[in-house]
């Protein structure tokens, strides 16, 4: 990794590591009386460790000068592995908290291990740790191939990747220490939020500068989605996290908005984190890896345009469907419901586009578990976007809201769509990255596929059942006109479903472990003497020697 950097770049890297260490030390010193101090120590330690890594390789020979005639894939390689590690960790935590709802005593007598603190560790770990690293890794890969240009920087991809992972580490360790802003999927506190803004600006700058180098006149669809993901997530993140810290020495902050305005801002963020993090970015993945694996071009260019702008415009209106029948003004609820229903059009345009691309290649879907992952992802994408529009209808929402149905819906999207498309993309990508002919074991991909699919189906069915039972029990009246069930009655009915959910989650976790093993073993396979040529090389108009 270090050998790919020039001596000058190694010096710059050392300066950055030193700055990170100093920043961590400063944070640790001012926050020494607060939990903030732990995060100062974490950053200082990370800075020192990175500094050590760079120093060890500092006197290595300079890289081959014609490195810039090749794509830069080291950050993608690391990103793929780290993403899978986050998956294993975060689905493990997810399954643990799932068991906690069946056996609440399955824990320690300490704050860090209680459900309330571990649950955001799970959500942040899968969404940002697994999903975010997968997006960063694949976006670097796709961007270079579709632009036929090398990344516009050798150091900045590492700043993005390492910085983002430090943010994720601060987030999950923070929750266990008791640091949280409580906004769902935006729990990290102010200093981590600012840290992420720096990382994100670097990401955007790298992306746009690489696009400026592109040798293809058109920007490919996948990059539209990655761009929307980067830009809109930045807007959402900054607005929703506006807050006043107690002091510079405190991790704790108080959000700028309160009550109804805060609720609207939060769900504008929350729903669009789903849209632009978990949908746009992964559609970018789909639009590149699915046609490549299937060996067929995308079915319709026109559908991809409609879908892209439809999603980018409509999603931003839909957040208020999280607040039906609340103290949020009625007109905002109605707008949210209306736009949520219309959203099914661009969503199905993309799902349909994916499936129609596969039309004519069904024998490949049957034989190739990697392509089947992507096929199932497109199906789940279609299903969960339809379900989402349906649940946004006010009377439906009166039943589904606050119940496990929402949890089931989210997991249909997260397991069925986001994770499946990522596995399909990774199994396509990994042999290309490491110049192998194929993955280490296709039987293990097959095993992963069936574990992931059965885990998802068990999970989602369990939550549909529990959610609807819950919703119906809460609103059931006895003949004498009183409520038929107490709250605890409804909880008692949940236990078998919670058990089934935890089993489904375990199967999914097991699939992830197999995936990580398979990818790891692929990287350990002996390199081929005559590796397959996967890509056209980058194009240079002028001699890069200057």
């Amino acid at each position, binding site marked *: 990794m270090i050998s790919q950097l020039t001596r000058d770049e190694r010096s710059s890297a050392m300066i950055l590591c030193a700055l990170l260490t100093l920043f961590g030390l400063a944070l640790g010193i001012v926050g020494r009386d607060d939990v903030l101090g732990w995060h100062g120590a974490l950053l200082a330690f990370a800075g020192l460790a990175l500094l050590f890594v760079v120093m060890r390789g500092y006197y290595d020979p300079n890289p081959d000068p014609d490195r810039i005639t090749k794509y830069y894939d080291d950050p993608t390689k690391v990103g793929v592995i780290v993403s899978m590690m986050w998956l294993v960790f975060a689905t493990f935590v997810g399954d643990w908290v799932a068991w906690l*709802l*069946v056996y*609440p005593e399955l824990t320690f007598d*300490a*704050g860090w291990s209680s*459900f*309330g*603190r571990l649950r*955001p560790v799970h959500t942040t770990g899968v969404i940002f740790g697994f999903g975010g690293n997968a997006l960063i890794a694949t976006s670097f890969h796709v961007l270079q191939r579709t632009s036929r240009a090398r990344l516009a920087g050798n150091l900045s991809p590492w700043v993005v990747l390492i910085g983002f992972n430090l943010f994720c580490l601060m987030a999950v360790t923070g*929750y266990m220490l008791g640091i*949280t*802003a*409580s*906004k*769902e999927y935006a729990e990290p506190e102010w200093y981590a939020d600012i840290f992420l803004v720096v990382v994100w600006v670097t990401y955007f700058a790298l992306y746009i500068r690489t696009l400026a180098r592109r040798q293809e006149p*058109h*920007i490919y669809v996948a990059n*539209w989605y990655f*761009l*929307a993901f980067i*830009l*809109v997530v930045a*807007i959402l993140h900054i607005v929703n996290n506006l807050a*006043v810290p*107690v002091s510079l020495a*405190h991790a704790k902050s*108080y*959000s*700028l*908005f*309160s*009550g*109804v*305005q*805060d*609720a*609207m*801002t939060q769900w*504008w963020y929350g729903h669009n984190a789903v849209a632009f993090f978990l949908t746009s970015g992964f559609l970018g993945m789909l639009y590149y890896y699915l046609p490549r694996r299937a060996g067929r071009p995308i079915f319709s260019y026109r559908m991809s*345009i409609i879908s892209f*702008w439809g999603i*980018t*415009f409509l999603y*931003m*209106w*839909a*957040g208020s469907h999280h607040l039906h029948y609340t103290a949020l*003004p009625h007109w905002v609820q109605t707008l949210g419901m209306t*736009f949520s229903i219309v959203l099914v059009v661009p969503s199905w345009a993309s799902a349909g586009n994916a499936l129609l691309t596969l039309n004519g290649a069904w024998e490949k879907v049957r034989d190739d578990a990697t392509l089947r992952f992507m096929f199932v992802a497109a199906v789940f994408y279609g299903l969960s976007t339809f379900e989402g529009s349906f649940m946004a209808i006010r009377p439906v929402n009166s039943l589904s809201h*606050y119940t496990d149905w*929402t*949890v089931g819906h989210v997991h249909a999207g997260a397991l069925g769509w986001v994770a499946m498309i990522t596995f399909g993309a990774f199994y396509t990508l990994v042999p290309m990255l490491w110049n192998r002919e194929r993955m280490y074991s296709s039987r293990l991909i097959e095993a992963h596929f069936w574990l992931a699919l059965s885990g998802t189906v068990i999970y989602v069915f369990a939550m549909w059942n529990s959610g609807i039972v*819950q919703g119906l029990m*809460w*609103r059931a009246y006895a003949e004498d006109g*009183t*409520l038929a069930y107490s709250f*605890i009655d409804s*909880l008692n009915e949940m236990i078998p479903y*919670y058990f089934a959910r935890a089993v489904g989650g375990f199967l999914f976790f097991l699939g992830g472990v197999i995936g990580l093993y398979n990818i790891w073993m692929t990287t350990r396979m002996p390199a081929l003497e005559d590796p397959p040529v996967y890509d056209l090389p980058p194009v240079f108009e002028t001699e890069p020697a200057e």
Partner: protein
Amino acid sequence: MLDKHAKLERNAIAFVFAIIFVASIGGIVEIAPLFTIDETVEEVEDMRVYTPLEVAGRNIYIREGCYACHSQMIRTLQDEVERYGPYSLAVESQYDHPMLWGSKRTGPDLARLGEKYSDDWHVAHLINPRDVVPSSVMPSYAWLQRNSLKNEDMDLHLAALRKVGVPYTDEMIENAAQDTYGQARPDSEPADAFLERYGEDSNVRAFDGDPGRLTEMDALVAYLQILGRLTDVAHQQASNSTGGE
């Protein structure tokens, strides 16, 4: 149209601005008016602020992630009103930075929990939920009773809350740490001073059952006991509407 798009696709900067423009419209239309339209939040006179001890308790509620399983938002649905009490009004979370409306009810809604159960019940329930609700799946929070409350910086907390719009007075901010003791130690000098600042109706009790020690349990129970009781307007509105029938 397709020709125009083909042009846009060739210009990365134009594409960036197009995305920002298209994506901004929805949020601006839906969120910006909420800050300017008067009807968004009702005006009520008896709305009171959280005391320092309740703020500390609220922060513990946040820290432990209670909002992941408990909502604080009763919807305008008949069964919810009968189960939990009058539906929640916007003004009731006016001083909630951040709001804790929640999104999931693994446990029941807590918007009107205040004074529904005794302090003793809460303490027992938090130490081991299954002692009082045998089939509960709630975690035990026994350590709250063991941890002393960190209260020496409560003035900074109140000052930060004032910056975002909660009307604390200078006096309240200066005495914030002292007032956390006062609220949890009845019949003491700090208690009298606390009552003077926050009104005779405020709860002054040894919430965790031990007036000698200020624990995190004190703070959390104080907060739970004020839920839905910062203003009486929701109850008034509910009784007015039934009285008119």
